[in-house]
């Protein structure tokens, strides 16, 4: 694992609050993500973990607070800006383009890297074709990496769940992100699939140096994979630190197991 540089903060979330009507999903949550680390966000159901990711990549608009990404501070992110800035994302319940093949899904992830204009694409000739081949080569590298060669031309709607999750990770990787947000990448998987996915996540972090923020419920996975863990409960950050620190925190144990009265 790449040693995280303590001074190098990629993303800083400051006092972000988000509410839906009367429900307070996030209450003044602050935390940061360092360049090159694997950062886990955990918490019981309804703690506001997914809301946090949605705020980070601009899908939700926080009521107040600030997000500093790559040195630029904003009150909120725009989804398009977040994508262009290098934030990629996978979803809790797979959000693939169902009618398209696995290959096309991952190719779609290259959208922001496409340089040729529509007129060239129309002719699909010369530089346009060369560029398309180049993107295909990059995408094939990802396909190799994720070991999904055999299903590249299958419409993703027909794939089993575990493979869909992998294709979704591939689509996010195709964006060559600086920050990868994974929302429960291992939900609903069996042990073997979880091991595969953990390996992919660690390899992404090692080989590409991608910073990863992940939400996961499997504590064994979280404790093994992550460099630092933030714990949310009812929209409040109740703990933050290395896996060992978090494991020993009495507040965290109480949040998960309840307090004896």
């Amino acid at each position, binding site marked *: 694992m790449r040693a995280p540089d303590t001074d190098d903060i990629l993303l800083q979330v400051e006092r972000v609050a988000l509410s839906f009507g009367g429900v307070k999903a996030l209450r003044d949550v602050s935390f940061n993500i360092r360049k090159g680390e694997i950062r886990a966000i955990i918490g019981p159901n309804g703690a506001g973990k997914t809301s946090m990711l949605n705020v980070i990549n601009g899908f939700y608009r926080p009521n107040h607070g600030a997000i500093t990404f790559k040195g630029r501070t904003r009150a909120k992110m725009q989804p398009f800006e977040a994508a262009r800035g290098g934030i990629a994302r996978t979803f809790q319940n797979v959000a693939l383009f169902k009618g398209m093949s696995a290959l096309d899904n991952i190719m779609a992830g290259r959208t922001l890297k496409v340089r040729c204009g*529509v007129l060239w694409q129309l*002719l699909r000739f010369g530089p346009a074709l060369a560029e398309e081949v180049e993107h295909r080569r990059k995408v094939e590298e990802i396909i190799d990496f994720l070991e999904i060669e055999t299903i590249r031309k299958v419409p993703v709607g027909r794939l089993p769940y575990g493979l869909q999750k992998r294709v979704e990770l591939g689509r996010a990787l195709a964006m060559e992100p600086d920050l990868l947000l994974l929302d429960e990448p291992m939900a609903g998987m069996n042990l073997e699939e979880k091991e595969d996915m953990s390996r992919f996540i660690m390899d992404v972090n090692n080989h590409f140096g991608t910073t990863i923020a992940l939400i996961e419920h499997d504590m064994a996975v979280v404790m093994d994979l992550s460099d630092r863990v933030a714990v949310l409960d009812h929209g409040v950050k109740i703990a933050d630190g290395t896996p060992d620190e978090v494991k020993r925190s009495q507040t965290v144990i109480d949040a998960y197991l309840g307090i004896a009265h």
Partner: protein
Amino acid sequence: MLYREAGQFKTTYAEDMAIFPIRQDRIALAILLGIAFIGVPLLATFRIWPFGSDYLLWAILLPFLILALAAIGTNILVGYCGQISLGSGAFMAIGAYSAYKLATGVHIPLASLGFAIAIPPLPVLASILLGGFMSAGVGILFGIPSLRIKGLYLAVATLAAQFFFDWAFLRLPWFTNYAPSGSVNAPELDFFGVVVRTPVERYLLCLLFVTVLAVLAKNLVRGNLGRQWMAIRDMDIAAELIGIRPLYAKLTAFAVSSFIIGVAGALWGFVYLGSWEPLAFSIERSLDLLFMVIIGGLGSIMGSFIGAAFILIVPILLNVLPTELGLPLSTQTITHLQFIIFGSLICYLLIKEPHGFARLISIGKEKLRLWPFPY
């Protein structure tokens, strides 16, 4: 056994990304193009069966080509980008009337300002293409609501376009150059000195337009823009988060789709009808195009051709068949029967294969690859 790709190895990504990566498909396409570009004109020129009269060219092939083109346009918007449109007929009309105005010279009197905008008559080819661009512009305008509304609601918004332009071309005499009957006559089809008159020439002209535009459309849909359209169709939120701008993707789909439909409309008026009234582009035309796309296969260029053929040819066949078979039926009964059979055929097809002919063919191909073994 014939349809096998065994032994056809692709060594480059470019080969694998070709329109027809399988050799047999390429051969079939070459034969089809050969028949369309050489066979049909030869047979028609020498009046060899089945081209003894011009009926097959005029009543079937010519409208088939133009409607297939319009169906490709509709498919880009509805099938690829997932924006339901009931205004295709209106965009055909915009293409046709714009081309007509440009070909006969545009004169906009601005009396209050004391001068007039006058554009001299343009050549036919320029008029047809500019008619397409005019349609694209209006398409973008009517595509703006799609950023806010989706699905059936958007369909209703595009229906508004249909009714508005039906009304405009019927009631505003400026569009028809103040023709008292409201119908307009297309100018002579002069392409840089080559005048297109006979049915064979008209057929070749349309074939050329359709082939070129179909290839360009295919290039777009298998390139990045096409992937953006399909991404918006399948999951717009995820599309936005990978950096696709919905505004750009949707409006380009409206523009490209309306352009193709506009050109088809101009061809329909200029090459097929010759003279026409606003009724030629009514809501029925829009519905026909939508049916073609649904039955042919949403999100398939080839499906657009098959759908157009089905919607156009089956009613004609049903009309002609009883007489050919010598059944003693009155023309009225035949017409009623035609509606009944055609309607139930559509129902049957959609129940059997909701994804249309294009999917049927791809399933067929899958099976054929393995034939005679089941696996």
